[in-house]
C-alpha cells in the first residue's frame, strides 16, 4: 500500500519520458501533479472520503463475494430511440462510430487546446483523483456546438488485467448546445476524470452507468462547470464492483443554472461504494437537486455524502439533498450524510437522510395479493430506485 504513491509517480515519470505525443504545457501539468503527489500519502480510513471504503482494494484484485438476494441487473432507463454515437475507449486508443455529426468534434485528450484545459483543485482527500492527472494516457476531448438529438456513448472497453487504466475526458458544450452523454463502465479497472464545461444556456443529459463484477474497481472524478442558464441533468447507476469511488463536483459560474442529479447505489455482495457530491453555489440564483437512493446487501458498505456550499452573496440559491437508504442484511452498512454550508441570505434549502429496511407492511400487502416474498422485495427495490432516476 505504501507503494501506491511510488507506483503512481513511477508510472507518470515513465510516461513523461516516453510519450512523444505530450505537448510541453501538458507535460508541465503532469509534472506539477507528480510533485503534489509526492507531498501526499495514500488514501486510508483517516480521510473523510475514504473512511467507509477499504482503500487497500486500490491495490487488490477485488473483493470476496457473499450471497445476495439482490438482482444485479440495473433498472433500465428509456432511451426513446435516440441516435447513438459510440466512442469506444480501449487499449489501442479510441474509435468513434461513423454516424458522428459534424457539430461534434472528437479528438485525443492530448490534443486538447491549452486554453480549454481546466486545472482541478486536488488535495489529500482526492489523492487518487490527482493520480489521474499525473498518469492519464487515454481519453478524448469532445466539443459540441449545436443542439442535437444525439446520445454520445462512452464505452469503456479495456482489457481486465488488474492494471488500472487512467482516462481523462473533457466535454465542452458551446453556448446553447444540447446533447446527451452516456458513460458505460462494463469492463476493466478504470480511474477516470471527466470535465464537463457547459457554456451559457447549454443543456446536457448525462447517464453514468457502472455495472461491475465483484472483482472490478472504478474511480471517477467528475467536474461540472456551469455557466449562466446552463443545465446539467445527471443520472448515475452504480452497481456492484469491489470498490467504486465517485466524486461529483459542481461549480456554478453564472446565474440561473440548474444541476439535477439522481443516483442509485446498489451494493450487492462485499462491495464498497463511496458516492460524494460537492456543489459550489458561487453565484446567485442557481438550483441544485441531489437525490440518492442506496441499497446495501451482503457485507457491503456504502457512503453517500452530498455537500452544498453557498458562498457569500449567492442569494436565491435553491438546494435540495434527498438521501434515502435501504439495508437488506445485518452485515451491510450505509453512512449517509447531507451537508449544507451557507453564507448567503435568502437561500431555500431542504435536506434529509433516512436509513431503513424495506417496509414490512408494504411487503405484506404485496404478498397478501399473491406475490412471493422474493418478487415483492424486487418490486419494492425497483420502485425505490425509480425515485432517483430522472
Amino acid at each position, binding site marked *: 500500500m505504501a507503494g501506491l504513491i511510488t507506483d503512481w509517480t513511477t508510472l507518470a515519470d515513465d510516461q513523461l519520458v516516453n510519450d512523444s505525443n505530450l505537448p510541453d504545457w501538458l507535460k508541465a501539468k503532469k509534472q506539477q501533479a507528480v510533485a503534489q503527489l509526492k507531498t501526499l500519502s495514500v488514501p486510508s480510513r483517516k480521510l473523510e472520503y475514504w473512511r467507509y471504503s477499504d482503500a487497500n482494494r486500490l491495490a487488490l484484485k477485488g473483493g470476496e463475494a457473499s450471497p445476495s438476494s439482490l438482482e444485479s441487473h440495473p433498472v433500465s432507463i428509456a432511451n426513446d430511440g435516440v441516435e447513438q454515437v459510440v466512442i469506444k475507449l480501449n487499449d489501442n486508443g479510441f474509435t468513434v462510430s461513423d454516424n458522428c455529426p459534424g457539430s461534434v468534434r472528437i479528438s485525443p485528450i492530448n490534443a486538447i487546446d491549452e486554453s480549454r484545459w481546466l486545472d482541478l483543485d486536488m488535495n489529500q482527500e482526492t489523492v487518487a483523483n490527482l493520480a489521474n492527472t499525473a498518469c492519464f494516457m487515454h481519453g478524448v476531448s469532445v466539443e459540441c456546438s449545436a443542439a442535437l438529438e444525439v446520445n454520445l456513448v462512452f464505452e469503456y472497453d479495456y482489457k481486465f488485467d488488474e492494471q488500472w487504466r487512467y482516462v481523462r475526458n473533457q466535454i465542452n458544450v458551446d453556448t446553447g448546445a444540447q446533447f446527451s452523454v452516456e458513460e458505460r463502465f462494463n469492463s476493466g479497472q478504470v480511474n477516470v476524470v471527466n470535465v464537463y464545461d457547459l457554456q451559457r444556456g447549454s443543456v446536457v443529459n448525462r447517464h453514468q452507468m457502472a455495472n461491475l463484477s465483484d472483482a472490478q474497481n472504478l474511480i471517477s472524478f467528475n467536474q461540472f462547470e456551469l455557466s449562466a442558464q446552463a443545465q446539467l441533468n445527471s443520472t448515475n447507476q452504480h452497481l456492484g464492483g469491489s470498490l467504486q469511488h465517485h466524486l461529483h463536483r459542481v461549480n456554478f459560474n453564472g446565474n440561473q443554472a440548474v444541476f439535477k442529479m439522481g443516483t442509485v447505489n446498489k451494493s450487492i455482495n462485499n462491495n464498497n461504494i463511496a458516492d460524494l457530491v460537492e456543489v459550489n453555489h458561487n453565484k446567485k440564483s442557481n438550483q441544485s437537486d441531489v437525490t440518492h437512493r442506496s441499497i446495501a446487501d451482503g457485507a457491503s458498505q456504502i457512503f453517500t455524502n452530498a455537500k452544498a456550499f453557498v458562498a457569500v452573496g449567492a442569494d436565491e440559491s435553491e438546494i435540495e439533498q434527498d438521501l434515502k437508504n435501504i439495508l437488506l442484511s445485518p452485515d451491510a452498512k450505509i453512512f449517509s450524510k447531507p451537508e449544507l454550508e451557507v453564507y448567503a441570505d435568502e437561500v431555500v434549502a431542504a435536506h434529509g437522510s433516512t436509513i431503513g429496511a424495506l417496509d*414490512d407492511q408494504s411487503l*405484506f400487502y404485496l*404478498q*397478501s395479493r399473491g*406475490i412471493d*416474498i422474493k*418478487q415483492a422485495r424486487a*418490486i419494492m427495490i*425497483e420502485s425505490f430506485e425509480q*425515485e432517483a432516476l430522472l
Partner: protein
Amino acid sequence: MLKIDNVYASAGDKEILKGLSLEVKSGEVHAIMGPNGAGKSTLGNLLAGMPYVQSQRGEVEYMGKDLLELEPEERAAEGVFLAFQYPVEIPGVNNMYFLRTALNAQRKYRGEEPMDSAQFLRMVKQKIKDMNMRDDLLKRPVNVGFSGGEKKRNEVFQMGVLEPKLAILDETDSGLDIDALKIVADGVNQLRAPDRSFIIITHYQRLLDYIKPDFVHVLADGKIVKSGPKELALELEEQGYGWLNN
C-alpha cells in the same frame, strides 16, 4: 370452507384472540361486529398471514388445508383475500402493474397460464365497467394519495379482479359516501356465488342492508360471544355493546 377452532393469537406482546371459533361454509356471508379493539382486524390479519400476528393455540382449516402453515402469497393463491382496514401506500408501484403481477403470480401457483397484457387489459376494462371503478386510480401508484374512500374502493376492485374464494372485508364500508357504499356492496353481491364466502367486518348495520349476511357474530375480547341471524345487527345498532359488561 373455513373452520377456525379455539384460536389464541397475539400481536406484539399482546394476547388478542382468546379462544375464537368460527365456521364459514361455502357460499355463506358472515358479518362480524364488535367494539373497538376487540380483535376483529387481528382475526383478518391472522387469516391473511400478517407476520406479526402469531397464533399460540388452535387450528384454522381452510379447504382441507392447515391455513396457518401457508405463506401469505400461498393463501392468496388458494383464494384468501383480505381487504385491509388501512391499505398501505406503495410509492413507485403502478396499480395496474401490481394487479397483473399479483394475478399472474396466483395463476402460476395454480398451474395456470399467465395472462398477457392484452388479455389482462380487456378483463380489467370489463371489471371497471362492472364495478364502477374510476380508471384514473389504476394508472397511479398503489393507493398513493388516494382518499380514504378511494383506497377502500381500490381494495374491492382488487377483489373483483382476483376473484377469491374467501374474501375478508375489514371495515371496507367505513369512510364511504352513500354512493360508494352501494358500489362496494354491488361489487360484493356480484361476486356472491355458491363456492365463494365472505367475512364482513363492520361497525354499521347500514352495509348489511345492501349485503344480506347469513349470520352476524359479535366479537368481543378476542372471541365470538354471540351469533345470530341478520336481525342481530339491528339489535346491536340499537343497544350498543354495554350489555357485554353484564
